[in-house]
């Protein structure tokens, strides 16, 4: 029975090819736009997330309270964390290690050119290996820093490919001026696809503290707990400790202890907001396209009054007629949705590749099955809903009146 409905609907669409195609075209354009924009948005989100290069999932980050939107960690802070805070956290029983990390804006001179960028410090000993692992720093050329390396740096990959504006590539063995002091470049880091890390200057912590005159302040404390299952307990213990050390009551904390997921949630919620806003604007065209379907279906019903009359007089029920027209309009929607999803998917694929080339990231184009499935079902639904009123009108026609037309 359902097969009959489908065949009948399909044939009637085929017999009005031009009109059917134009109707499909309307909804197709809309779906293409929405699918392409959502896909591109996903790609962009992945690109931005990859810039922060935080991959170690078992690390808690401790920061003092401030305006987090003001810049890199530590910038907008009112009452900074200290070396002593780090030591105290280290003594907690759940904590495996606590690593103070500072980042500073600095000046690097090479080949008689100057660039400005971020420097980070790496601690000594066991913590060094942990930091390299957590940040996934691997070497492209030369070697990583080791304990006791003074006036030696490792540079991000962009220095190697000269994407930083020095007019010359920097290689291991070269000498650069950082904050007007001479440093030997001992290694270049493998490309990470993140403009923060690929433009970064890495030096030993004591050297960083020395040339940027950092006494006791700490931008961020990275804490590893003894076991992944202790994350929540670790967070609570650190909060309790710092409340006491900083003399604040519960609920009035001027610091934050964050898990890696929550650290990214702020920026992701903004990006999602933008994505939704754009999808809504693009959806206007789907609404317009669905009005096109309603219109076509009205015309179709008017034209086929006689046919409806005949069908009814040989025993078709109201519901049969209703289904016929509903399926017809649903098909219009779904064909548009299908082609639109394919084209939109293609556009977002090409676009994501474009983003990769543009910012030098390595994002896999997202094939979002939920999005595809949603677009297909959605377009069928939109088609059916758009056809509901015309189908109802067709179903309620009196056989005699319809035949008399």
């Amino acid at each position, binding site marked *: 029975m359902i097969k009959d409905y489908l065949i009948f609907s399909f044939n009637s669409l085929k017999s009005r090819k*031009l*009109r059917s195609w*134009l*109707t499909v*075209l*309307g*909804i197709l*354009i*809309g779906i293409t*736009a929405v699918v392409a*924009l959502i896909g591109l948005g996903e790609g962009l989100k992945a690109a931005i997330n990859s810039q922060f290069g935080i991959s170690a999932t078992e690390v808690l980050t401790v920061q003092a*309270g*401030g*305006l987090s*939107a*003001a*810049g*890199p960690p530590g*910038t*907008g*802070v*009112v*009452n900074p964390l200290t070396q002593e805070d780090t030591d105290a956290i280290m003594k907690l029983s759940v904590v495996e290690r606590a690593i103070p990390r500072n980042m*500073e*804006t*600095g*000046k690097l*001179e090479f080949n008689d*050119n*100057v660039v*400005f*960028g*971020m420097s980070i410090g790496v601690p000594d000993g066991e913590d060094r290996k942990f930091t390299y692992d957590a940040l996934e720093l691997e070497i492209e050329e030369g070697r990583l820093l080791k304990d006791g390396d003074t006036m030696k740096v490792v540079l991000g990959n962009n220095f190697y490919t000269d994407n930083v504006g020095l007019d010359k590539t920097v290689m291991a063995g070269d000498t650069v001026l950082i904050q007007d002091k001479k440093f030997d470049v001992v290694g270049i880091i493998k490309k990470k696809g993140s403009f923060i890390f690929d433009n970064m200057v890495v030096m030993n912590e004591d050297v960083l503290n020395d040339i*940027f005159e950092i006494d006791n302040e700490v931008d961020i404390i990275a804490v590893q707990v003894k076991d992944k299952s202790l994350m929540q307990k670790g967070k609570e213990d650190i909060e309790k400790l710092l409340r006491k050390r900083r003399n604040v*009551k519960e*609920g*009035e904390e*001027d610091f934050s202890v964050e898990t890696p997921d929550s650290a990214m949630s702020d920026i992701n919620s903004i990006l999602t907001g933008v994505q939704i806003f*754009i999808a809504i*604007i*693009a959806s*206007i*065209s789907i*609404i*317009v*396209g669905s*009005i*096109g379907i*309603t*219109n*076509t279906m*009205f*015309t179709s019903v008017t034209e086929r009054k006689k046919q409806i009359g005949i069908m009814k007089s040989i025993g078709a029920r109201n519901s049969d007629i209703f289904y016929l027209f509903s399926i017809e309009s649903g098909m219009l929607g779904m064909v548009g949705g299908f082609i639109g999803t394919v084209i939109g998917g293609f556009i977002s694929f090409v676009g994501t590749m474009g983003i990769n080339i543009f910012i030098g990231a390595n994002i896999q184009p997202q094939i979002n099955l939920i999005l595809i499935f949603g677009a297909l079902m959605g377009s069928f639904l939109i088609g059916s809903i758009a056809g509901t009123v015309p189908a109802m009108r067709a179903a309620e026609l009196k056989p005699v009146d319809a035949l008399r037309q």
Partner: protein
Amino acid sequence: MKIEIVKYALKNLWLRKARSFLTVLSIMIGISAIFIFASFGLGLYKYVEDIASESGVDIFWVQGKGNSAPGLDDSFKLEDKDLRAVDRTNGVEIATGMYVKVAEVEKDRVKRYVYLMGYSDEREEIKLVESLMTVKMEKGRQFRKGDIGKAILGYNYLVPDKIFSKPYKMGDKVEINGRKFDIVGFYESVGNPGDDSNVYLVQDDAKALFEINSYGMIMARVHDKDEMDNVVNRAEKKLRNVRDLEEGKEDFSVQSFADALETFTSVLNIIVGFIFLIVIISAIVASVNTANTMITSVLERTREIGVMKSIGATNDNIKNIFILESAVIGFVAGFFGVVVGWLLAYSSGQALDGLGWGFLMPTFPLALWTGCILLSTLVGMFSGFVPAYYASKQKPVEALRYE
């Protein structure tokens, strides 16, 4: 003849009310969307223009290089010697330095982190800072000489549930980084939540509170704004000299108000252009719908066309009838589209203002109204063109035979 064509076209549209209505509706939605986004876009351009004309075209400022929000990064310090260098630059009328920090404001045990600006207590220098920040007094007074222990707050501190659930009022004390300051004034709303949350102290207080000696920003006003580029160049040279830097290796940047506006405008162009591109898609879909409607209309009336032709209607007559029909659809849709668009844009503008985003204000110049209606009419005509041409080329005999 002309009037007959108009009458005939209108009658036909009326006969197919439902279809005409739906076609009008689809164009109308597209035009409303265009109208809404265009009005907000134009509003933003007007905002930029207002700022440019009201103040600032004769101002430039200096910042140290850095990766964070303006003024906060102190890797490259701006000190009194730099201020003196700017002040002594030929063509500079007055220069002043401003401290920029993030501060913790506490009220009823709730803490908020906001930007704090510390600036001079000299009349002329206050004027310079205020015109750069585009702020005016809403309540109370400006800083006076020797105003130690006093604070001026941004507009949002006056509004309940914006920053704190209970607003501040004149004469209250505000607790900043654990120290209490007397509130002597509030600035007017700037229209964005960031700037409206700022707190302001005089330089000496800010300096003592944060133990800093590096300005977040040095700003200056030039005598003659036409000389701006030259003065900026001279200031750069002076700063290079006092900081002992070669050209091309500056660890500071000098920017004039006009440069900043230009950058802002070009970013604005991209955003507005992108959104507009997406909105235009709905107009394209609407025109496909209209073409569809017109084709159906032509097919239905094939016989009628045959009759008209056999009693002497020319090809042009037939073409005009159908183009006119689709143009009327477009015009009606445009008319209602702008009305609906205006209602939505106006009310959402009011809502945004209430949320503290007052700079996102739509404007409705006459050209926007007429442009949208014209665009809509053209979309209608354009969509009707192929069907109309097709109709006009029908052979009378075949048209009459059509069933």
